């Protein structure tokens, strides 16, 4: 066993055992409360540059399989768990998580009081941290942490997006095609669309409106992704251009923030974000509550007391988080666009919000919506 330390930007230090690769890493410390789905979490591009603290104590029990990864690699910059499995046990397991982390060079730490760390982050807010299994010198680690780039102002989608466009074909008959702007898309998303007869053209995050339209897509999907939405000026410009042309748009997570900015709303950083698969979101039109998967450190700043006028007509906050009232969804009345701050593809997470993909299909099926002028 190798000792390891975790040092937070405010100096608080935790000592534990090395987990995964031996080495050093820095990133924004965030906690995730899901009790299942560590493989999906690790491979979610939205966790790029983040050190993920798992609040569930036992991690790695089901190993790593060949089906559940959400992208081609592990994105987290560091991993913090309390009790890693000594051996996996599941009929789909192919290898252990420990081996997988080592193979991907992911530095982690185990055997620390993850609840104490979580409470610290809850009280003081998300902050940078470093993990080292090569030195016990906390000052050196702290210096590296302080020298690292903060999350506010970080433009990260370019770092995680696909370099080249690619296509995910509809399962069965192709009814529509959608262009997805990849700010950090997860593989379950095109899969959910493929299940509904949609072929998805996944495009680099920097694609322009013309490049998007050149695919001939019926609609545009704005993906999730890491980083500070305030930096996404180019993406916002692209979306505004698409809104002007009344292209049906569905955005999630970072995509919700980009759409929000396109409508003219601001974004802001949450104290410690929403990262879990048990977040209650209320659809304000039906009053119904869905249990949803979240992974966001930033949110849209929009009034929740009714529709507001934007350069693209009336826009209303459609969904809110019941825990803290954070804006979780936007619905435009005069252009065919809507978005949610959470993850309807739900990998990991409950499938309550899968209907949003159906709603997207309905939106695409009714191209005249913009002309009808909404409500």
């Amino acid at each position, binding site marked *: 066993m190798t000792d390891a330390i975790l040092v937070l930007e405010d100096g608080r230090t*935790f000592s534990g055992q090395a987990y995964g690769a031996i080495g050093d890493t820095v990133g924004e410390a965030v*906690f995730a*409360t*899901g*009790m*299942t*789905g560590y*493989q*999906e979490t690790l491979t979610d591009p939205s966790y790029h540059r983040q050190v993920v603290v798992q*609040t*569930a*104590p*036992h991690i790695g*029990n*089901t190993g790593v*399989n060949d*089906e*559940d990864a959400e992208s081609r690699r592990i994105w987290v910059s560091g991993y913090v768990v*309390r*009790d890693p*499995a*000594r*051996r*996996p*046990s*599941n*009929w*789909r397991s192919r290898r252990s998580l420990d081996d997988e982390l080592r193979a991907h060079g992911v530095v982690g730490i185990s055997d*620390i*009081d*993850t*609840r*104490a760390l*979580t*409470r610290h982050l*809850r009280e003081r807010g998300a902050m940078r941290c470093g993990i080292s299994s090569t030195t016990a010198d906390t000052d050196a680690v702290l210096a590296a942490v302080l020298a690292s780039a903060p999350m506010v102002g970080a433009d990260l989608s370019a770092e995680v997006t696909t370099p080249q466009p690619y296509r995910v074909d509809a399962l069965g008959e192709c009814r529509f095609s959608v262009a997805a702007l990849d700010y950090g898309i997860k593989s379950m998303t095109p899969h959910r669309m493929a299940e509904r007869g949609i072929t998805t053209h996944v495009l680099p995050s920097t694609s322009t409106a013309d490049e998007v339209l050149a695919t001939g897509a019926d609609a545009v999907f704005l993906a999730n992704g890491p980083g500070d939405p305030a930096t996404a000026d180019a993406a916002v410009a692209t979306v505004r251009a698409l809104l002007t042309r009344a292209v049906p748009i569905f955005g999630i997570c970072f995509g919700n923030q980009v759409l929000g900015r396109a409508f003219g709303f601001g974004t802001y950083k949450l104290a410690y974000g929403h990262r*879990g*698969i*048990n*977040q*209650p979101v*209320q659809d304000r039109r039906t*009053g*119904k*509550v869905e*249990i949803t998967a979240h992974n966001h450190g930033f949110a849209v700043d929009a009034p929740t007391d009714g529709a507001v006028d934007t350069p693209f007509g009336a826009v209303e906050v459609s969904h809110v988080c*019941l*825990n*803290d009232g954070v804006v979780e969804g936007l619905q435009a009345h005069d252009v065919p666009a809507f978005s949610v701050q959470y993850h309807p593809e*739900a*990998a*990991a*997470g*409950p*499938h309550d919000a899968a209907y949003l993909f159906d709603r997207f299909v309905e939106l695409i099926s009714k191209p005249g919506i913009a002309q009808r002028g909404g409500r």
Partner: protein
Amino acid sequence: MPRRTDISSILVIGSGPIVIGQACEFDYSGTQACRVLRSEGFRVSLINSNPATIMTDPEFADATYIEPLTVDFVEKVIAVEQPDALLPTLGGQTALNLAVALHEGGVLEKYGVELIGADIEAISRGEDRQRFKEIVRRVGADTPVSLVCHSLDDAIGFAESVGNKVVIRPSFTMGGLGSGLATDAAQVRTMVARGLAASPVHEVLVEESVFGWKEFELELMRDRNDNVVVVCSIENVDPMGVHTGDSITVAPAMTLTDREYQHMRDVGIAVLREVGVDTGGCNIQFAIDPVTGRMVVIEMNPRVSRSSALASKATGFPIAKIAAKLAVGYTLDEIPNDITRKTPAAFEPALDYVVVKVPRFAFEKFPGADPVLTTHMKSVGEAMSIGRNFTEALGKALRSIETKAAGFWTVPDEPGTVEELLARAAVPTDGRLYHVEQALRAGASVEQVSAACGIDAWFIDQIASLVELGAQVMAAPSLTPELLRRAKRHGLSDRQLAALRPELAGEDGVRSLRARAGIRPVFKTVDTCAAEFAAQTPYHYSTYDSESEVTAQLDRPKVIILGSGPNRIGQGIEFDYSCVHAVMALREAGYETVMVNCNPETVSTDYDTADRLYFEPLTFEDVLEVVRAEQSSGTVAGVICTLGGQTPLGLAQRLKDAGVPVLGTQPEAIDLAEHRGAFGRVLAAAGLPAPKHGTATSFAEAKAVADEIGYPVLVRPSYVLGGRGMEIVYDETHLEDYISRATEITADHPVLVDRFLDDAIEIDVDALYDGSELYLGGVMEHIEEAGIHSGDSACALPPITLGAADIARIRSSTLALADGVGVRGLINVQYALGGDVLYVLEANPRASRTVPFVSKATAVPLAKAAARIALGATIAELRAEGMLPRRGDGGDLPADAPIAVKEAVLPFHRFRSPDGSHVDSLLGPEMKSTGEVMGFDATFGTAFAKSQAAAYGSLPIEGTVFVSIANRDKRAAIFPIKRLSDFGFRILATEGTAQVLRRNGVAAEVVGKFSDGPGNIVEKILAGEVDLVLNTPWGAPGNSGPRVDGYEIRTAAVSMGIPCLTTVQAAAAAVQGIEELIRGDIGVCSLQARHEQLASWRGAGS
């Protein structure tokens, strides 16, 4: 959608007596429901026959009916109360079945009562196995192949088609009664026959066996707006084949990926919607093939269940409370989460800890019973523990359960080869994990063990990690702080470490080593959200981690109340009742109350009960750490050990020795009462007679004592609760047999040999003593004579045959005992009145099982008063403030006071010997009952009839009675049997009994004994030709003729569910009850009205 305004009064149905499969979890759920409904402004009426429940305390409902849970009595309550609505989902299967029966009988319609929280159609869809399977398939999910059978032939044919490896489940029974696994054609035949008999609708489901698959449960909630949340996932460590109530279970599920878990969640929600559960909680069980991952749905409970109580305690999400709110119209998003207070109940709890539940069994009470675990529940209780990893939680749970072994390595191994050990681990039994551990330690691989027992390799590997850790602890040259810390982090108790390192001089040595190294647990919080939001409710558990969350409180002195741990026979809900009362009384008196307990079924472990809750094992180590944590965060006035039964009582002396203030009766006084010699001196000093007795540590000594005092003698080990190991011995041969079986006799724990008082009346007394004044709480007269354990004996309060002079003698004797022992609080004394001598059988300076019964019968909260006395209040002060009556006590109730009868409820029908026959239902000095009911009415006959109706279904008012009476009882039995004959009953009797009856003018028909062959009485009972059995046993235990006859008769009665009376006294009482029933119209009366009656009598003075 807010609270409904179109209903204003609601009837809640409780679950009745504690039985296997339905325990105090329904007191927890019912109490929460009553609390919620009243705080929402509804008029709440309640019916429940169990007096030991908190929910039947008069302050929890507007009108409380302690009446039998039968359709007749519920209808009577409905007629009086005229409720707008009926809430049946919080009283277990009993309440749900009653609701269905009330609906089918047209009662609900007749009185215009709306069913809330449940829908009759949905109940039927959920419980009718065939319809349920169709629903599961309709939503695209899988179920085991099966066939619903109404005949033996159908079942045999189907079973053959799937290879005779099938599970048989009768419809509409609770706790899996009558269900089981058959692996060959012969088993199929016997089990189907039994199942058809057990099902009220004569229906069984025969299905493909998924024995050995992984087993999971989801706890779901739905509101009227169709919002659904999964509160908790539970994984059974024991694979399919063991009833979930008998399995070791873990929350959350440990071995599912998100995809698999979400698939389970999707199916669960789809099934819930399709079944149409109206609002509230529901539980769905799944099985997964560990090789292919194929998932099948097993069953659902459309109501709050034992698992939902566990899930509530495991997550901090109070399912029953929320179910009650949903039933009256709220939606999940409108209900706040109690723990965070700022987030809503519409969410799914996230756990950052592991919860392990371990069942507690009582096979030692039923010597012939088959100890192999099946789909038929056999456990009598459970303990839950919380840790930050599985090994820690498992270790805490294993020591919480209070069996002889308190975690691995604490008792000597049963030797065996690896093969033998693997074979042992393959059989599901109580304590199977000990075999698993031993097999691993003997060198078996994780794969081998997992293959042998079907337990998932992840769990086996966790135990393997403990085996490795144990080996390291043993092999290390010295126990370094680092290794010690790691051992504690994985749940090893000081006792386990001491067993591994004998040089540390026991548990105390390990504790001082820890103290020197500064290795102490911290206390974390159950907060529903994995620390995402701040918790406002101090619901704590210990763990070895770095940061503690116990916050300082400075304002009020704190009192720590130790609970009673897992339910077992002899120590159950009655003790939880007293603990909860102490909390209520002390809170009101200005103390901050701190509860320590590990039983997830109870009201005491509801975080709403005490100011602070520690969910911890009740061992010295764990309790001491709680005390230290509380002392470092505020002022601890002391610990109350005398209300939770034997468990906390056993800790009192050590806590006191460790410098912890023990409140109320001191450990020295407890010791005085329990040590025969010292107690004898107390009796002598007070001039009180006890039956002749002696102690012995060998057969020779025992024989000498018995010869001197004369047979029959009562023999028992010292220091027991619930009469463990007690027997009445009639001669020397059986004395020798007893001594040879009582293997644990030591000089410290000798066998007690008492003169057995053959025909004395036994009397139970509960009293309070403050050092100068005695308050006689109640005097209970047993209906059975001495020799039947007081917990199994029916009793009446006020006593039915004792005169004022007897009571005066009891009062002065009790005062002398309380003073001589040094009681400050409650004392329970058992007397036997024989030949006009009042013998003292035993005295227990603590709360007894009868405290709730006495409190309800006399309208005086004895446990509350005891708690106050423990903190220094005097009886005079309590009288002045109104907690106790201003004058008089429970000994001077007026002649026309209502009579309360307590009857015990016995679990014999739950246990079978390995060959499938029932175990004997004979009562004796060893307690066997799991619960109790109360019949309360103006006259003894009516009260007794109610108690029988509540315990066993109504006494018959016509039909056939079979009597077989021991010679010694024949004279006394003539009159009651003659009365039955006069009422028109047909009397069947064995030859000897019939002769005596005929001579006395009773036309008795002779019927053959079991040993007489065809046409005998056992056949007649099994054919349903007999409605009541009166059989007083005789002959020595063993294989002698009369004994075997009696055994067969009683077990036949048990399997047919007809009343079986084993004493003449009970028969006499039954005759009075039958007379009242024949006279007709027994009414109902609320507890509040009866209490008012008592209060007005007391107010009038005497």
